[in-house]
């Protein structure tokens, strides 16, 4: 097929086809082999064109499931996740996932159906202005007005989504554009004069940073998700080891530096380690690589890195200086910049005392919890999952207590195994994201760690798990409450547990059984380990309902409005 139309084009003949067929051709050209979606009226022509094609389509049971799955896929593969949904409600059901992908910089290309161009603006059946709705939560979006524009727009959409700082791009396709026949001209190049991301750093600034490194006695590297997107893990490791600079991670940056490395301090921020947050507070040189100084990292900005010269390496210039004043700004991708820095900085500063001091803090004030009594502690559960998977599984989460415990106790040994909703903090993200991650990386074990609250937001995707027989292990950290809300109510609202307790729940084991999925409910450490190992061996979908201590809180913690040095719940 492909060869034939290339040949015809060379002969100067033009191929005629429908918009929907053009979409399929363009997707194949982009190397897309899996779509996540849900059909409906306005995308009928697209699904009809798909019927003839050999592109895998994952039919989730809700559009939100489709987009979160695409996010999981994008996070672990580094390629754009592709989503199709119909107009109106189909499109609006994607909004949460689009916003989530935008704030966490995940590459997605989303195709939404739209009502026919003749009725756009008339409040037609299943019409929603999805281009207007998603304008602030997409990197860019399009509405196709002429069928001939389709190949070019799709080419642009993939280019914009996957280059620079990645992000979601939405393409809205009216139904009549899908059906109308036009001459197909494959797009081979993009022409975007207003979009030229800077990837190579300014050498002058790199040299300034190299000088600062020589001068610094107390430097620290803050590695964010930008390191993962740029695949710069090796360069960062080399940089840290060459200059003996301790490394801390943002939540989304976990995995960009080996968790068991002696220079690693753990995660920083609201629930970060004492060593990490102290390092950020005391450092004289803060090298931020690919992080955006989110408020959950910095705490009160007035107390953030007060003694430090701040260097910020980011591919998005708008992030530099947005929250924290930056003396050494470097626009560039983490990989090229770190490599340039390695070349330009032959000499190191004397950091021996600082490294020793932080190692002491790491030993004296590690993450801690009281592992006592019969009831399973959630922290212990995550340690068990780490031990059983050697820290090499793909782990996904929602938002809240279970997310923080996973970040604290899972210990990611390798990059691109950590899939979580960081910026937006979306409940119900983890389970569908695990489906996408498993499809993207079938060779790796995938564990979806969720809370009992979040799981109930997207559990309909159990159907997909069973239909595809995907060996994803769902671990419900079941504390019969919206744990993080409950924790804040305990600490800041005098234990008034307003609407945060979930004493009535489904029997999750029976629920899984209804979908034909193996499941078990455990209450002790031994059972949890045994059943998890069983699940791992079964190579089949598995749900593990873990009844954990319901009053356990996430510590240490920086209370809202407090500085990064004002931690509570540090090991005494």
């Amino acid at each position, binding site marked *: 097929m492909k060869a034939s139309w290339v040949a015809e084009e060379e002969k100067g003949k033009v191929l005629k086809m429908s918009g929907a067929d053009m979409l399929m051709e363009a997707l194949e050209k982009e190397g897309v082999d899996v779509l996540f979606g849900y059909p409906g009226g306005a995308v009928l022509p697209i699904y009809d064109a798909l019927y003839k094609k050999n592109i895998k389509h994952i039919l989730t049971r809700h559009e939100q499931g489709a987009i979160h799955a695409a996010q999981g896929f994008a996070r672990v593969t580094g390629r754009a996740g592709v989503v199709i949904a119909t107009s109106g409600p189909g499109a609006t059901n994607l909004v949460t996932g689009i916003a989530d992908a935008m704030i966490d910089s995940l590459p997605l290309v989303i195709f939404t159906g739209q009502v026919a161009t003749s009725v756009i603006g008339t409040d037609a059946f299943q019409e929603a202005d999805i281009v*207007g709705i998603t*304008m602030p939560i997409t990197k860019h979006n399009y*509405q196709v007005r002429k069928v001939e524009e389709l190949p070019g727009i799709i080419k642009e959409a993939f280019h914009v989504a996957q280059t620079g700082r990645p992000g979601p791009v939405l393409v809205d396709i009216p139904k009549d554009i899908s059906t109308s026949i036009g001459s197909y001209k494959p797009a081979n190049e993009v022409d975007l004069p*207003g*979009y030229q991301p800077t990837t190579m750093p300014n050498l002058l*600034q790199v040299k300034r940073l190299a000088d600062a490194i020589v001068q610094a006695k107390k430097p620290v590297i803050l590695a964010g998700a930008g390191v993962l997107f740029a695949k710069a893990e090796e360069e960062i490791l080399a940089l840290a080891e060459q200059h003996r600079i301790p490394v801390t991670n943002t939540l989304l940056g976990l995995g960009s530096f080996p968790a068991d490395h002696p220079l690693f301090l753990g995660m920083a921020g609201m629930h970060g380690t004492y060593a990490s947050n102290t390092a950020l507070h005391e450092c004289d040189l803060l090298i931020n690589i690919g992080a955006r100084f989110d408020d959950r990292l910095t705490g009160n900005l007035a107390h953030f890195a007060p003694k430090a010269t701040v260097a910020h390496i980011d591919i998005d*210039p708008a992030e530099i200086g947005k929250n924290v004043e930056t003396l050494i700004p470097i626009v560039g991708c983490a990989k090229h910049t770190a490599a340039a820095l390695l070349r330009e900085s032959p000499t190191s500063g004397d950091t021996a005392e600082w490294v020793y001091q932080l190692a002491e803090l790491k030993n004296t004030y590690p993450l801690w919890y009281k592992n006592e009594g019969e009831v399973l502690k959630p922290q212990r559960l995550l340690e068990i999952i780490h031990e059983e998977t050697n820290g090499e599984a793909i782990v996904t989460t929602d938002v809240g207590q279970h997310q923080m415990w996973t970040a604290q106790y899972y210990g990611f040994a390798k990059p691109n195994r950590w899939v979580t909703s960081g910026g937006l903090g979306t409940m119900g993200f983890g389970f569908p994201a695990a489906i996408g991650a498993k499809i993207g990386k079938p060779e790796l074990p995938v564990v979806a760690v969720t809370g009992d609250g979040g799981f109930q937001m997207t559990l309909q995707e159990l159907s997909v798990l069973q239909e595809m027989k995907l060996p994803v292990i769902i671990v419900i950290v079941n504390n019969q409450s919206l744990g993080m809300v409950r924790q804040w109510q305990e600490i800041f609202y005098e234990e008034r547990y307003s609407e945060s307790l979930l004493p009535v729940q489904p029997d999750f084991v029976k629920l899984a059984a209804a979908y034909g999925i193996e499941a078990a409910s455990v209450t002790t450490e031994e059972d949890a380990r045994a059943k998890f190992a069983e699940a791992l061996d079964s190579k089949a979908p598995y749900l593990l309902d873990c009844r954990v201590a319901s009053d356990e809180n996430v510590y240490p913690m920086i209370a809202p409005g407090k500085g990064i040095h004002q931690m509570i719940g540090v090991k005494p």
Partner: protein
Amino acid sequence: MRRIITATVLNRSGVLNRLTGLMTKRQFNIESITVGHSDEPSISKITIVVQVEDDRKLEQLLKQLHKQIDVLKVKDLTEMALVARELALIKVITTPETRSEIKVIIEPFRASIIDVSLENVTIEVTGDNDKVEAIIELLRPYGIKEISRTGLTAMPRGTQKTVYNLNQFSII
């Protein structure tokens, strides 16, 4: 502080919406905004007058505007030698006695009467903000029925002093 910013943009559907939307989202207060074609029909020029708190906010705004895919160029003209003009149409209530008086008042402003009826005249004036404000204040006692203002459009002068304050915008 008040800044005059121009953005050169691709003339694609929704581009104005993108810029105003991002300014709303990031809490920038637009004083006026004007849009029109440039010498090329596919490229438009947008002039935004905006109030920002400080230099850091300003830098954010310039970077965020620049980040839009459809934006080709962003320039803060405030510190430059520039020409800035807006056009105002002012409908003033007149009586046979005041009509000639008004004519005299508007003359130094190089404004002109472009419509006359028995009860009122419509005056067209072009100039910078101060000039427009001044003529409005002078006409106010006669009774202003309606004002329509275009907002500022601006352009740097052909000749500039050679020193710019570029220290904080070097990384764009």
